[in-house]
């Protein structure tokens, strides 16, 4: 894999198609994630996939790497039809993937993680730790990362863990290597090294599929560009012919279906005041995931927080909600310092969070729609020691109407709803606490366009009634069309602030990719 043993199996020149995906359709229940995609990967070339969240990039990569199976359509590897029923099948066929999420065991060493599930054994069947360490060391040297293979992964900082994830794919000695957001936690110098490694690999004839939200970075590394939108492949072009505006235009296609940018703006008093908040990253590195952030949100105002992965937005939201402690600064809610209050106390004072991960942090899966809605406010819906069930039913039904949940009834199981309706339930639960400040982390993640529009029109309706809204998004079109004010975060800091009506997509993207240090204190 390094040095001289790098002959690529099979014959063929650089540029020849090695893998072909034909008419791939993938449906989850009634939603189509991929609507008949034809896609090619070429030997010794870097194919970059562009597309917004939910465009179908990751789904296609999961199919190519054997994690998921297509509903219809098939794959051809060097002209031969193949079917991959597991990631191990794909690995045996020479396809490796670097996943967007880190899939590492913190309790094991770097070496053990790199070879996890593919341990090298000696004749007796025991793990050959010596050879594993040696190979792991070679790969780490190649990646110019000064960590020992014996280090525990849990002791590494996030960027180094991502390097381990990359190393794990490199030892597979694959002919097709898929990289899904490989640089989200890497420093600039680590990215440079990774690009050097990519160049080494392509010289040896390895085909690379690359996905990144850092558009400029992705354009830099690309040989071929492929753009996805709404489950379809909409454009293909060689790298020489593309630039940032072209990519953005292809990604977005049409304007968003909703546009609230012309809504009247009448703000009241400052409801939420974030003052110099710092949050220490939970990865144990001592790094600040939120670094000296100050933001004011007024009654009736909808403020959007945009940024790339790792910008510190979720960490800020969790600190505001009271789940994570803050290292410095103050959180003032309607003139009252709530910095040290518990989650229930903050909710009682009027600030509540709609979390990013709906399944993990939002829904109580074993409960009904109604019970999920009333969960946060149940302590106030009582008569004596008991729940006032009639009043609960009345308020729940009113909320179902208000946030427009499509359900068979408030007693239906929450798991019977679609993603968009589940999200409306989580938002409805928050609204039932009659908040002054509503925090939403990626409120439109994983839901269809129609539901997105409904959710934002709901937010604007609530804002007109005086609610202060602070929400996080990774989609620029959403940030531009559904906010009164747009704040961009990068590497834990607020780097720019925009009036969404007077800015462009390119400006926002450029701001989100800036090195925060250069803009230190430029705006807050």
């Amino acid at each position, binding site marked *: 894999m390094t040095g001289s043993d790098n002959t690529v199996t099979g014959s063929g020149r650089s540029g020849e198609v090695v893998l072909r995906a034909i008419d791939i359709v993938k449906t989850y229940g009634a939603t189509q994630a991929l609507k008949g995609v034809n896609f090619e990967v070429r030997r010794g070339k870097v194919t970059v996939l562009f597309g917004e969240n939910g465009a179908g990039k990751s789904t296609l990569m999961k199919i190519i790497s054997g994690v998921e199976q297509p509903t219809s359509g098939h794959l051809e590897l060097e002209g031969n039809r193949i079917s991959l029923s597991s990631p191990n099948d794909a690995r045996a066929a020479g396809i490796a993937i670097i996943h967007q999420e880190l899939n590492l065991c913190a309790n094991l060493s770097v070496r053990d993680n790199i070879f996890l599930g593919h341990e090298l054994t000696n004749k007796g069947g025991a793990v050959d730790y010596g050879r594993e360490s040696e190979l792991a060391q070679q790969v780490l040297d190649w990646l110019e990362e000064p960590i020992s293979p014996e280090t525990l992964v849990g002791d590494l900082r996030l960027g180094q863990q991502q390097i381990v994830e990359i190393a794990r794919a490199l030892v597979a000695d694959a002919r097709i290597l898929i990289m899904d957001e490989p640089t989200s936690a890497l420093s600039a110098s680590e990215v440079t090294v990774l690009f050097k490694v990519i160049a080494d690999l392509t010289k040896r004839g390895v085909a690379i599929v690359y996905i990144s939200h850092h558009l400029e970075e992705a354009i830099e590394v690309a040989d071929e560009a492929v753009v996805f939108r709404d489950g379809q492949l909409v454009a293909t072009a060689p790298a020489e012919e593309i630039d940032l505006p072209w990519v953005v235009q292809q990604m977005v296609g049409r304007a968003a279906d909703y546009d609230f940018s012309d809504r009247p703006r009448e703000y009241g008093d400052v409801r939420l005041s974030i003052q110099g908040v710092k949050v220490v990253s939970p990865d144990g590195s001592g790094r600040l995931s939120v670094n000296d952030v100050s933001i004011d949100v007024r009654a009736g105002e909808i403020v959007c927080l945009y940024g790339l992965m790792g910008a510190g937005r979720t960490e800020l939201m969790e600190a505001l909600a009271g789940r994570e402690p803050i290292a410095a600064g103050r959180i003032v809610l309607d003139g009252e310092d709530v910095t040290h209050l518990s989650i229930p106390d903050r909710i009682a004072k009027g600030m509540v969070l709609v979390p990013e991960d709906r*399944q*993990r942090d939002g829904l109580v899966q074993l409960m009904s729609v109604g019970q999920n809605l009333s969960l946060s406010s149940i302590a106030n819906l009582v008569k004596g020691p008991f729940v006032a069930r009639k009043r609960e039913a009345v308020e729940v039904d009113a909320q179902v109407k208000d946030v427009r949940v499509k359900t068979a009834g408030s007693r239906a199981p929450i*798991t019977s709803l679609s993603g968009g309706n589940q999200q409306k339930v989580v938002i409805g639960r928050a609204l039932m606490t009659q908040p002054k400040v509503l925090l939403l982390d990626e409120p439109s993640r*994983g839901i269809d366009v129609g539901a997105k529009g409904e959710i934002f029109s709901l937010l604007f309706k609530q804002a007109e009634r005086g609610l202060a809204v602070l929400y996080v998004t990774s989609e620029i079109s959403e940030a531009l069309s559904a906010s009164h004010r747009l704040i961009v975060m990068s590497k834990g800091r607020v780097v720019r602030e925009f009036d969404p009506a007077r800015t462009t997509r390119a400006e926002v993207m450029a701001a989100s990719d800036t090195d925060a240090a250069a803009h230190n204190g430029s705006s807050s």
Partner: protein
Amino acid sequence: MLARLKANRSAIIAEGRALLALVIIVVFFASMSSRFLDTTNLVIMTRHVAFNAILALGMLLVILNGGIDLSVGSTVGLSGMVAGYLLKGWEIPGTHQVAYPSVWVVILVGCLVGMLVGVVNGILVAKLNVAPFIATLGMMYAVRGLAELVGNGQTFTQLFGQKALGNTGFVSTLHDNVLGLPFPIWVMIVLTVLCSLYLTRTPFGRWLYASGSNERAAALSGVPVKRVQVRIYVLAGLCAGIVGLLLTADLSAAVPEGGSGYELNAIAAVVIGGAALSGGRGTVRGTIIGAFVIGFLVDGLVLIGVSVFWQEVIKGAVIIVAVVVDQAQQRLQKRRTAKQVSGPGSSPAAPAARSESTVMTRA
């Protein structure tokens, strides 16, 4: 109404299964022995059931939270020993005077002892983040040791009290019939009603089910998850304290090994009653039926003369079969829900299906 039935279907199925098992047991033993359905026999068996059922109610609260309490058997022993010790007279330290507390004080102290054990369990689990299995395993040993220490390994017998000392009535109050039924059965009935109201009608019940199903979501919704956790261990301890008192009155003696192994019978009753050990799913009705299944099964086997060894084998098999059938029904249920979801007019959430399967494997 239909939606309500649908929503509660899994609970109804779980209870229905336990009820079916109970019916089979009753029919089987009634056909094997004419004495099984005697009123006297039924009352005796139900009195046996009562001890386990009361413990199982406390255990249900803990299991709904996704926890487990292995210390309740030892707590039964400790509360009984403390009651026995007090009835035999408490020598006030530093003096040579002996106090004989009244029966009601003894009962109160017995309950408090149980709650105190629960407080320690709760703090270990909720505040110090010790896994419930380990925390209560440790407490199981420690509390059993304390029970031995109370009487220095001795048992307290003849706990009838003396008129002259004003402490009579412990045995008769907690043991004799009231309105034709033994006192423990009344305690079981009252606690069942209270527990049922607590779980289905109060905000606390809602919080318990929510934090047992998804603790992170519950916490972010403002549910005081730590307080919920401490409280359920205290209530489980209280149930154990009550059983300790009832058992001591039943034997009119307090033995340090009293209640050993009871925790496992309580867990079995909860599980047969359709509760999920992963938390969030289970009912009072199911648990009580589960306690009857175990109690009637064991007593029935005794009645028809099956050897003690085979009794254990059969009891074990019934527990395992209950859980295997439960798993199969859960899977069926999931498939049906999935089919409903992907029906026309609704766009389902792929992640939802994924998280359901996680829940299932945990269950």
